[in-house]
């Protein structure tokens, strides 16, 4: 155990609220009657469908092909008939192309026979290709294709594989359960990833509020590799890539650069376990762990959910909503996005479904900025949210860029601490979108 305090500066400490689901064992969700697989479930180019309406697919069959390097294929998470390929509500609030599968109700949901290679015998390139074929993305929320991060750019050397088990968002216990229930998979995943990256050290960062997970991972640590579990203080946004690198190895990633420039690659613990699963069973990413929690849901829990399950089916399996339920957030309450439609499916990047009730979803009056500076003390990337907020209000988006808006990761710390209830983070999100529009118009 390290004795130095591991830290990044600034940030906030919201109520953890994990007790609703922290001790609850994983429950497998029954297959719903219909699955909806949006083609865009990952950062990068959407997948390209390779099935037609009426085709019968078996569980694990590929239904869409990766389109380009920063893209992953998509697989049927249950056996059934392709019923439609068309627009469907997407977690981001738009309607996006999706493949719909009418699931066979009385089916064994068997997978096709497949050859499972021993990972020890594969080269780096073969390992990366296998990870890509398995459709693995970052399961921490951003859904960035994992294989891309396993290939360091030319000339860069990776010293450290950093496994992200912080789960700093309130409410969520997805990574917690992964580590408690599948520590061997995490261990195997670490081995595979270290081989891909050629990394000699691996640190697993876990916040101290997950003692069971820390114990479980510690118990299964490999003896032959330099892997350490690092208990971290509970602080949001510890799980943000750059914060975690600062806390674990005390290196700072310059704005606009990737972690690999300081010799580190960060992978979510869920992705690490999924990779191990893919090499154990030969199956691609078909289901993921989702925390369904909040005071607005009757039976909170941690569920193993087939990708593509609609929120409606997921919430029904959790006893449905309470009469006081007001707001459904995908992901954690700090960075997650509210949804307006229960037909939205669980995607690969859906970490949790938080249902807030009256008490936690109030309308607040937005008051003028009093220049107290709390937001400056909270911003983990050392921006001046107060100044940026004033510029955003004036619509001076280009000037915001000069004040490093691009560095903002929309963690929401500034909004959280603002005594005037100014939704700074949301304003920055709007400005970022406006800047993209301006740039697109220019080019």
């Amino acid at each position, binding site marked *: 155990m390290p004795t130095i305090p591991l830290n990044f500066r600034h940030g906030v400490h919201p109520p953890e609220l994990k007790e609703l689901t922290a001790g609850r064992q994983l429950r497998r969700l029954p297959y719903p009657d219909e699955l909806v697989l949006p083609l865009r479930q990952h950062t990068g180019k959407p997948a390209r469908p390779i099935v037609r309406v009426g085709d019968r697919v078996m569980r694990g069959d590929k239904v869409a092909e990766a389109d380009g390097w920063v893209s992953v294929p998509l697989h049927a998470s249950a056996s059934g008939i392709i019923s439609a390929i068309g*627009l469907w509500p997407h977690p*981001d*609030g*738009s*309607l996006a192309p999706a493949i719909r599968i009418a699931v066979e109700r009385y089916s064994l949901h068997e997978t096709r026979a497949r050859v499972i290679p021993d990972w020890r015998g594969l080269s780096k390139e073969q390992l990366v290709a296998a990870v890509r074929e398995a459709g693995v993305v970052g399961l921490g929320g951003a859904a960035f294709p994992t294989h891309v991060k396993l290939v360091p750019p030319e000339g860069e050397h990776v010293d450290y594989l950093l496994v992200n088990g912080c789960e700093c968002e309130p409410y969520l216990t997805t990574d917690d359960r992964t580590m408690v229930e599948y520590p061997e998979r995490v261990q195997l995943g670490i081995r595979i990833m270290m081989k891909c990256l050629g990394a000699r050290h691996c640190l697993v960062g876990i916040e101290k509020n997950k003692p069971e997970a820390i114990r479980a991972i510690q118990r299964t640590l490999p003896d032959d590799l330099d892997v350490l579990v690092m208990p971290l203080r509970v602080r949001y946004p510890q799980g943000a890539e750059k914060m975690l690198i600062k806390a674990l190895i005390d290196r700072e990633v310059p704005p606009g650069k990737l972690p690999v420039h300081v010799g580190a690659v960060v992978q979510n613990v869920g992705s690490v376990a999924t990779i191990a699963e893919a090499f154990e069973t030969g199956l691609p990413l078909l289901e993921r762990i989702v925390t369904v929690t909040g005071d607005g849901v009757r039976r909170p829990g941690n569920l193993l959910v087939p990708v593509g399950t609609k929120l409606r089916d997921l919430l029904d399996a959790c006893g449905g909503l309470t009469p006081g339920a007001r707001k459904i957030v995908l992901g954690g309450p700090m960075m997650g996005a509210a949804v*307006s*439609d229960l037909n939205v499916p669980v995607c690969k990047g859906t970490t949790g479904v938080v249902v807030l009730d009256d008490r936690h979803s109030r309308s607040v009056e937005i008051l003028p900025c009093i220049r107290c500076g709390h937001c400056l003390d909270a911003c983990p990337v050392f921006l001046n949210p107060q100044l940026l907020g004033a510029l955003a209000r004036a619509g001076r988006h280009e000037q915001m860029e000069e004040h490093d808006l691009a560095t903002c990761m929309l963690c929401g710390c500034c909004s959280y601490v603002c005594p005037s209830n100014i*939704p700074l983070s*949301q304003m920055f999100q709007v400005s970022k*979108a406006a800047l993209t529009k301006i740039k697109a118009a220019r080019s």
Partner: protein
Amino acid sequence: MDDSTTIVVSALILGGVGLVFGTLIALAFRKLRVWEDPRIDGTVALLPGANCGACGYPGCRAFAEKLVAGAVQPAGCNVLSGDGIEEVAAYLGVAAGAAQKRVARLLCAGGSDVALQQAEYRGLPTCGAAAAVAGGGKACKWGCIGLADCEAACGFGAIHMSETGLPLVDPARCTACGDCVAACPKNLFVVMPIEHKLIVQCRSLLEGDVAEQLCAVACTGCGRCAADAKPGVIRIVDGLARVDYEKNDLAGREAIARCPTKAIVWVEGAQFPALSRLAPARS
């Protein structure tokens, strides 16, 4: 050297230096002078000075330069009234030209009375912010959010929100500057000639009942308008009727007669004549 001499010498030196440089400046002014038509300044004085850019040039001065050069006609200014245009024409001794009045048109008629509201949006009260949160509360993902970003963007006071949360454009005040087009996160505004009277007030790509369930005035893509209109005027693409304005001369009221949802309309002047009542102005 006594005091008086010092004063005289300094005065002479300073005066001399001043004279030399003054001469240089005078010479440079003659030699390097860029001649500019004095009528440009005169024209600028007659133009509205709004620098709105609706004429297609970056500001009133650039437009004035083109006017004096004869590249455009005074009627190209969308902000000037008829008298103002005549005044500019008389000053320059050119024809006023035929103005093609252009206005901003909203491609959505889904006010709160007809469009399904599937969630309530709470947060920063701007359309841009609401669009970032699950696309706003309306079930229709293409529809007007109604939080008046366009009203705030309009520098001519031509846009006011109706009680049903739709922006009403006053064609008399609209200068077609395009600020509302840029402000709308759903891209619902289009600047078009006022002669384009056949307008599909919907952008929903959903078809049939699905579209109508979300909004009573949605285009369902049924194709009746395309069948009734003169050939080629309307095409149905991706479940939405689209007017080919190249064939605007052929467009007529027959196209709107059988529309089951009144998504396609014939607009004379302002859109939404029934929605005259305005919401209280936003502070």
